[in-house]
Each structure stands twice: as C-alpha cells, then as structure tokens.
C-alpha cells in the first residue's frame, strides 16, 4: 500500500462544552435527579463531554412540553409556516455541515469522508425534502380511514411522537425521524443513543438558532431506561424506533393495547448476490461498500455474500486484494476508509460472533493491518466456507465482518437469500436485466440494490419485511407513519 502523509481534518471547527443538559421546551435544563454519563471518542477513548441522563420525571416533562407545543403552536400552525421552519433547519445544517461532520466522526468513530460526504448531505436533504411536504399533505394520497379516532380535515397528525434512534448514523437517523414528524404536524421527544448524543445536542442548538417554537423538538439523552420511559409514557401518540430486533420486539409488546402507532426499523442480514456474469471489479467495489461502509455498523449491510460457485475463487481473490488497500485508523483523517468501532460493548459482540465463526469451522481472513493501540478497532474480516446454519450467517454482527456462501442456480440464490428472519435489504450483481427483475421480485426485502449497494435518498422509501420491522421511512410513504391514516 502507498504511504500517505496524515491528512487530519481540524477539530477546531467544533466548540464542545464540557457538559450538556437535556433539551426540553426550547431550553437546556438539568435532569431532575442530576444523573449523567460520559460520551467518549471511540477512536481514542478520550472523554468528549458529560451528558445528562434523563429519568422518568424528565421524560414526563419533555412529553408535556411536546403536548403543549402540539396543541397550542405546531398543530394549529399552517403547513406553509411549518415548512419554512424545516427549510431553515435544512439550511443551517448545510451552513454548519463541517462542524456537524467533525463532531459526528468524533463521537461515533466513522471516517470523516463518510460523515462529510454521506451523512451530512443526506441529513440536510432529508429536512429539505420533508419541508416541502408540510403544506401539501392533502395531496400525499392518503384517504381517510374510517376507524380513525381523530376528526377534522384529512389527513391529521398524530400528536406527540416518541423517537428512539441508534448510534450508527446519529444525525442521519435523527433527520429520518424528526423531519417527517414535524412536516406532518407532530411534535417530538427524541432520545439519541447513549454513545452518540452530541450531534443531537448540537441539533438542539440549531433548533434554537432557527427560532423553532419551544417544545416542538425535545431531546432527552440517556440509555435504555430513558428510552423505555419514553415509549411507555401515556402521553405519546406515536412511537418510532430504529435499532435491534430484540429491543423492537420489546417495544411492540410495550405498546400493545395502546393507541400508539408504531413503526420499527430493525436489524438485517442482507444477502449480496454475485452472478457469474457480473463485472468483477464493480461487484467487488459493491461488496466492500456493502459490508465495510461505516465499519459495517449498518442495518442494511450486505453481510452475507452469495457468490455463484463458478466465479467464487476469482471474486474472492479480487476482494482480498481490494481489502488489503483499505486504510484503517484515525476517523478524522481524510484518507481513512474504516474508522473505529463505536463502543467497547459492540467490539466485544463482534469479537464474540467472529470467534463463533472460527469455532463453527468457517475460515477467517483479514488483510495485514496495524490497528491503533487506544480505542476500539476491528480489522475488516471475511469468513469463507460458511454454511447457512452458522451463527455468522444467521445473526446480525453489525461490524466489518462478511460471511461468504456460494450458490449454483438463481433459484438457490433466492432460497438462501430469503432464509433468514430478517428482510431489510438485498443486493444483486449481474449484467442480465431480466434476471435482475426476476430476482428482485422474489427477494423478500424492503430495499433491493441491483448493481449498486447502500444507496439512500430522502425520496426513496426504506424499511423492512418480516423481523426487520414495519413502516417505511423516506418518500411519500414515510409520511404515513406520522399521519392518522
């Protein structure tokens, strides 16, 4: 590999405070019981800031603030005015994008080239897209459902939305949650993940800068208990969650029998299927992007590679050569391809599952690479000789670990691809158009990428089949989660 001189992005653009309170009713406030936790930089284990831990009382306060704002300000506000606030937010995000990108990389561990070129542009685009819907909801194509408990013109917002988001795309997941909710006329209480709260708190400052009315957006930081208090609160009308399937199941049980509308975006174990006629170099780029993008901390990651047997050796040889070129290290370095694993706990899970892969008889390979001494790191890894029964072929690893299987016929590829309780995404690599469409029809997954992978857009609905959850985010479909339809 070429030696590159270090090219670190400057941290000076970020003005970190030593501690952050909860953002409730337009102000940063101390939590009722004064608890706090630390958010660290996973690349160095350096403490970035002290974060308030929201308890049940704080959640209650936030939900009340959101209710009041919904009833008095945001609900009655004309859509065109809601739109203008969202456009303002989109613009401020664009203006402060470098600051947000650096902070995201610091708190999350993802390479700056991804936070800068993928996360932040998508965040701004998401607010921009949904801003435009705020005054056009009656044209969104939803008819009245006669069982609706709400009355008045159609369609109507739900009220207060409780939103719990993961640590893999902290600000992007915030935008997927907040933008459609606000456009539809709801107010929100959002809980960021405990390991990545910082960009959400900077977003709270952006809400202040945009003069968003107090209480429309509330950010309550904390861990699992804070999230539980939020989704179980009687005052919320809607729960939206992105995270693991196990937690999603628990949330589905918790809202059972209530009025709360629920959407869940959960885990995945996507098949990325390479046929013998696929251009190898393009497919390899897609495989690498599919599993090593964001350190594999991606719910729709292409974590099961299915290669047609006749080309398996050629594809694997090329894949290994490409993997040897990946640069692992400082997330703020502009040349870095793979950053830090987000937390010690996640690193332990990746190690545990990878060890299970070896123990169950799969063959493990990683390119030679030096990992930094401090922080949480895991070398990009592939397993060959994987069977469908192996844990690494069934369980979501959520790390830079790829399980490789082979197939002979398209029917076998479909069979293997669908042999999972998940159904979030899938990839197909072939030059034959009719085969793409034949496969796309049969893959039980919410997003199918053909001759590409891991592409996202605010206009494009995203979400899973089966145990990958329900509901869609993005596009016209994404509004449905926040309307009484």
């Amino acid at each position, binding site marked *: 590999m070429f030696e590159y001189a270090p090219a670190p992005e400057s941290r000076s653009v970020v003005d970190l405070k030593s501690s952050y309170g909860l953002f409730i009713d337009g102000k940063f406030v101390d939590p009722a019981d004064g608890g706090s936790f630390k958010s660290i930089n996973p690349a160095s284990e350096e403490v970035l800031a002290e974060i308030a831990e929201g308890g049940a009382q704080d959640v209650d306060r936030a939900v009340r603030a959101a209710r009041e704002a919904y009833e008095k300000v945001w609900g009655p506000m004309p859509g065109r005015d809601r739109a203008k606030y969202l456009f303002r937010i989109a613009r401020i995000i664009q203006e402060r994008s470098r600051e947000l990108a650096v902070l995201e990389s610091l708190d999350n561990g993802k390479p700056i080239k991804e936070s800068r070129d993928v996360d932040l542009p998508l965040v701004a*685009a998401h607010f921009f897209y949904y801003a435009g819907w705020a005054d056009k909801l009656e044209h969104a*194509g*939803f*008819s*009245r*459902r*006669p*069982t609706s408990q709400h009355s008045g013109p159609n369609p109507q917002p739900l009220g207060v939305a409780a939103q719990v988001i993961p640590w893999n795309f902290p600000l992007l997941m915030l935008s997927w949650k907040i933008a459609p909710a606000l456009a539809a006329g709801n107010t929100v209480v959002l809980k960021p993940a405990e390991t990545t709260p910082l960009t959400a708190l900077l977003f709270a400052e952006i809400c202040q800068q945009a003069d968003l009315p107090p209480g429309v957006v509330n950010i309550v930081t904390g861990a699992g208990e804070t999230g539980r208090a939020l989704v179980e609160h009687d005052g919320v009308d809607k729960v939206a969650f992105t995270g693991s*399937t196990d937690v*999603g*199941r628990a949330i*589905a*049980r918790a809202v*059972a*029998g209530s009025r709360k509308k629920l959407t*869940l975006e*959960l885990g995945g174990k996507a098949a990325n299927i390479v046929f013998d006629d696929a251009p190898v170099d393009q497919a390899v780029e897609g495989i690498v992007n599919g599993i090593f993008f964001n350190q594999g901390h991606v719910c729709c990651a292409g974590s099961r590679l299915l290669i047609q047997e006749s080309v398996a050796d050629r594809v694997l040889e090329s894949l290994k050569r490409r993997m040897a070129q990946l640069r692992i290290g400082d997330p703020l370095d502009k040349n870095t391809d793979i950053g830090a694993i987000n937390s010690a706990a996640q690193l332990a899970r990746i190690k545990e599952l990878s060890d299970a892969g070896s123990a169950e008889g799969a063959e493990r390979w990683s390119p030679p690479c030096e990992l930094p001494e401090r922080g949480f790191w895991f070398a990009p890894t592939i397993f060959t000789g994987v069977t469908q029964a192996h844990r690494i072929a069934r369980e979501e690893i959520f790390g830079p670990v790829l399980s490789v299987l082979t197939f002979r016929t398209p029917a076998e590829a479909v069979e293997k691809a669908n042999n999972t*309780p998940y159904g979030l995404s899938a990839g197909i690599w072939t030059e034959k158009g009719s085969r*793409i469409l034949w496969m*796309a029809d049969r893959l039980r*997954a*919410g*997003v*199918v*990428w*053909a*001759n*590409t992978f891991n*592409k996202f*857009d605010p*206009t*494009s*609905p*995203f*979400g899973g*089949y*089966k*145990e990958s*959850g*329900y509901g*869609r985010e993005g*596009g016209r*479909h994404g509004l*449905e989660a926040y309307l009484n*339809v």
Partner: protein
Amino acid sequence: MSERVAVRKTYKLFVGGKFPRSESGRSYLVQDSNVSLASRKDARDAVLAARAAVKGWAGATAYNRGQILYRVAEMLEGRREQFVALGVPADEVDAATDRWVWYAGWSDKLPQVYGGSNPVAGPYFNLSAPEPTGVVAVVAPETPALLGLVSVIAPAIVTGNTVVVAASPTAPLAAVTLAEVLATSDVPGGVVNILTGRLSETVPTLAAHMDVNAIDLTGVTDPELAADLEVRAAENLKRVLRPVPVDHDWLADPGLGRMTALLETKTVWHPKGV
C-alpha cells in the same frame, strides 16, 4: 302424500379449499345448527394451507386476481336468497356483493396509487412497489355477519395475501356459506381459510404462530384479549391491525387502509449509464 323431509347441511371448516370437520371431532350448537368447533391444531393446519397458497396467489397477475374477486361477487349475487334465509338482511348481502366488486377493481390499481418512481438525487432508476406481506390471520367482526366478514377478507386477499379467518362465533353460518361461494369462484384452495368456533381457542395460536406475517384484530371486542394478542404477535413482529369500535359503520367507504396495512413496500435501485 307425506311432506318431503329436508336435507340439512353440515357446517364445516374451510381449509385448503376443502371442507373438513374439526380434527378434534367437536362441534357447538349455534344458530340452530351444529357447527365445527375448531381446535388449535385446525388453526395450525389452516396456516399451513395458507402458506402453501401464497406463492401461486401472490404470483398471479393483478388482472387475474381482480377477475377472481369479481367472480366471487357474481357467485354471491346468485346466492342472495340463501344468505337471506340465514337471517342476513337483503341489503347487507347486496352491500357485501358490491364490496367484492369494489375491491376487485383495486387489484391492478393499488400498485400505481401506492407505489411509483422516486426522484432520487443521482443517476439511478428507483421504483417502489407494494407487495403482499404473506399469511394474514383475521378475526372477523361479530356483526354484521356477512358484510363485516367480506370487508376484512377482500382487502387482505386482493393484493395477494392469503388469510386464515376466525369467523364470528355467534353467527358462523354466513361465514361457512361464504366459503361455499369462494369454493365455486376460482379462488385457489388455501387463499381463504375459515375457522369456526371459539376465538379464545384459535386466535391466540394464530397470533403466536411464527409463520403468520400479520394479524387483523378487527373482531376482538375484549381490550385485554386484544392487548394479549398484540403481545403474542410481537414475537415475530407481525403487522397488527387493531380492533375497531363495535359501532363501526361497515357501510362507509373503507378507504385504502385495510389494504395498505397488509402490504410491504419494496424499493429497487439500479444505476443509469451507458
């Protein structure tokens, strides 16, 4: 001359296109008839039949499914008096027939209304289309016996789902008779399966079944039972349609919600280039 002795009908389950008795050999007396009392095993058998029918039904063309649903309306129209004799008001039979016609027309229109191309910011073809979620368990409303039943079955199957229906326990005769309509309407066996008996026996099994993709709790009137079923459904993250109030107006325009709640949206991307 003596008066002719009538030939009575045996009311049985409808599973996989056939009319079996309950495997448990039980029946219960309701509406002056012995009606099959379905067991948990019958519920599981019905799910197997429904799953086996998914591939063919979901894979049929929308045009074909629309024609078959329209055929159901034709058959129902012809048996109008039979339902009236069971105590179903004539105008309810007419409304139920019209509902089949209404849903029949949706088969090849909903994908256009509910899907379409997405203008992504890049050189990609991007299309979202609805697909059936799979096997749907349905708790039919207690009343109206026929219109309520049709109003929950038709929107589930028009898009390609297959259903296992727990019929109204107090008015099951209309359900079994509707099964006879379905059996003579080119609806493939297993697309609609109807269980009669106690909800408390069959529905918890359906709610917990790992090969059921969605559950429609429309006919569940006990809030505690509804919550319990929703908890069971969470195990494999079934899509859940919650109960409707007992005073629900079944004659009103149903909207799209019953169809769209049982659909998945699949989005396909492909690069554009030369």
